[in-house]
């Protein structure tokens, strides 16, 4: 139908070049309009898993062209806000939701862990391929007590590595973030001094360093400043080819962030029975990388529009199973099987 009317107009315009443009501009919106019977899903939230969710959407909609999904990485806090105001079909947050926040959503909330990742400490020290940081060392650096790369506290665990006489530039987040929350939670767990001076939260005041916005902002700061160290989601360091420090875990071992060491950490997490909200703030195992976290999808218990609810359920179901395959190549840790099972169980509550 569209093509026919377009064709008529085109012949009337005597096949000039303009007519082709006209044809294209006329029919494109019409074609789009006819396809918009598809279910539209809007999601917003954490930037930490955003690259993975974008990939999921691309892969999922290939097989399910009747669904259109749009995810905006606006940050965990903003995601929770939009979710509470029912502006989106689903939200996403690295800090899950607090009980108060859950109470504010009248449709009810189902929290589903969707993926997981390690938070790594990338550094910019040309010529230093491996760097081992003891628990005292990395707390000391982020408290501003260790100021130079050749500090004895660093030299002790890096024998054979020539650490330069260079100032340490600590790079941190200037905005509120789930990454902040997880990282400061870990530091507060292992250091009473950190807990006292800085504390844990999505937005904290660091005693030293320069700050940039978002995981990408911190990554950029590390790349720009020689002698820098910061904290970002593993995928950001991996994609930017930054070396990250090996961290000493609770058992005293120095562990690099890998899929295996991240998965080992996640496996130690004890979830409360009905609410899937927990953080492995300082895992025990020898092979565990110390800082890893889940990130959550926020769904409503009861959707006003049944079609939307059904579409969200199907998409999340796919993400928990098929979607996990894409985690590793993007720098995330696939969810352990028991967490996937618990997630699928929780998903049943969505109506």
């Amino acid at each position: 139908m569209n093509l026919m009317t377009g064709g008529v107009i085109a012949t009337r315009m005597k096949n000039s070049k303009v007519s082709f443009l006209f044809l294209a501009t006329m029919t494109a919106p019409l074609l789009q309009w006819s396809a918009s019977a598809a279910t539209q899903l809007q999601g917003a939230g954490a930037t930490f898993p955003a690259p993975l969710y974008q990939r999921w959407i691309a892969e999922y909609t290939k097989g399910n062209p009747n669904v259109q999904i749009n995810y905006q990485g606006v940050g965990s806090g903003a995601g929770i806000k939009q979710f509470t105001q029912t502006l989106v079909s689903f939200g996403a947050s690295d800090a899950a939701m607090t009980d108060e926040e859950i109470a504010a959503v009248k449709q009810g909330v189902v929290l589903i862990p969707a993926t997981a990742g390690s938070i790594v400490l990338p550094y910019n020290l040309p010529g230093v391929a491996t760097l081992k940081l003891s628990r005292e060392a990395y707390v000391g650096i982020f408290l501003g007590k260790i100021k130079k790369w050749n500090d004895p506290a660093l030299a002790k665990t890096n024998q054979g590595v020539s650490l330069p006489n260079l100032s340490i530039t600590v790079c941190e987040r200037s905005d509120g973030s789930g990454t902040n929350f997880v990282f400061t939670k870990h530091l507060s767990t292992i250091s009473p001094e950190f807990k006292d001076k800085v504390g844990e939260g999505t937005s904290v005041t660091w005693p030293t360093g320069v700050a940039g916005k978002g995981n990408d902002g911190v990554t950029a700061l590390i790349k720009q400043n020689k002698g820098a160290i910061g904290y970002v989601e593993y995928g950001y360091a991996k994609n930017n080819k930054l070396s990250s420090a090996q961290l000493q875990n609770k058992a005293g071992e120095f562990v690099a962030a890998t899929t295996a060491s991240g998965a080992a950490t996640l496996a130690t997490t004890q979830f409360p029975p009905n609410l899937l909200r927990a953080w492995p703030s300082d895992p025990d195992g020898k092979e565990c990388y110390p800082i890893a976290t889940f990130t959550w999808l926020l769904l409503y218990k009861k959707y006003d529009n049944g079609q939307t609810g059904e579409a969200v359920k199907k998409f999340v179901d796919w993400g928990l199973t098929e979607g996990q395959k894409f985690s590793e190549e993007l720098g995330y840790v696939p969810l352990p099987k028991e967490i996937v099972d618990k997630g699928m169980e929780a998903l049943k509550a969505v109506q």
Partner: protein
Amino acid sequence: MSPALGNMKRLKKPPDFFLALTWVASVAAVLTLLWILESIVLPAWPAIQQDGLGFFTGTVWDVNRNRYGALPFLIGTAASSLIALCIALPLGIFIALFLSENFLPLAVRQVIRFVVELLAAIPSVVYGLWGIAVVIPIVQQFGGYLSDYLGSIPLFSGPATGNSMLTASLVLAIMVLPTITAVSRAALVAVPATLREGSYAVGATRWETIFRVLVPTAAPGIVAATILAFGRAMGETMAVAMLIGNSPRLSWSLLSPAGTLAALLANQFGEAQGLQISALMYAALALVLLTLFVNMAGEAVLRHAEKTTAGIR
């Protein structure tokens, strides 16, 4: 009332729709400003009640503990803008003099003038990128030497970071240069030729004429240029947020990271919650009032300048 307007009244013309339209447009502009102020003040109210004027003297901005002191950001805003002016003002005045005198053929001067004014057309984020690519490495290198040799002076105490007050100020200086140059040049060109001739007539050299006659006569215009540039520098957000290091700590050193009100808002607003939103709105109010005040001061100086030079024009 002008006689023309009086005549119109006497003729009892039908209502002038164009006049009505302009009225509506101007009232809408004023109302928009009031509306914006209102929508800042209302959400800021809880923070205003809690912190009052202590907001402007508090040195700790700790969201985690709900303590909001904006002094580091106020000082950061003022300092980065003032340093930028210290660099851009002499440079801008010299360029303006150069462009208003006939040292070079008019065609060449027009090209230079065009290029300088083109600097104003570069988007802020591009200045930020340029700062990252060019200014940060330079500041890191030379800042390192400065802190090594002059580190005992608080202004240059180390460690020197690339993202610092100095980096942000240098880029701001370039960003406000076109404002200073354009307005100063206009002021210099407006100095009546009779003054210059008079100065030559009493035996002054060219440079004596420039510095004793032309610049003093154009001074009000140059001051206005400075104030306008100051207002622009204070409100600048994107480039500063990319370069200044966004630190909430007070530091004497130019080589340390710092923060400004505008960058603070850009950084924290998206994820802000509860009282933090209020505190950020309070900071926004402070910034609006500061820039409004500076712009009004600039406007007043310009007006005054027009009045005092009216006699010789």
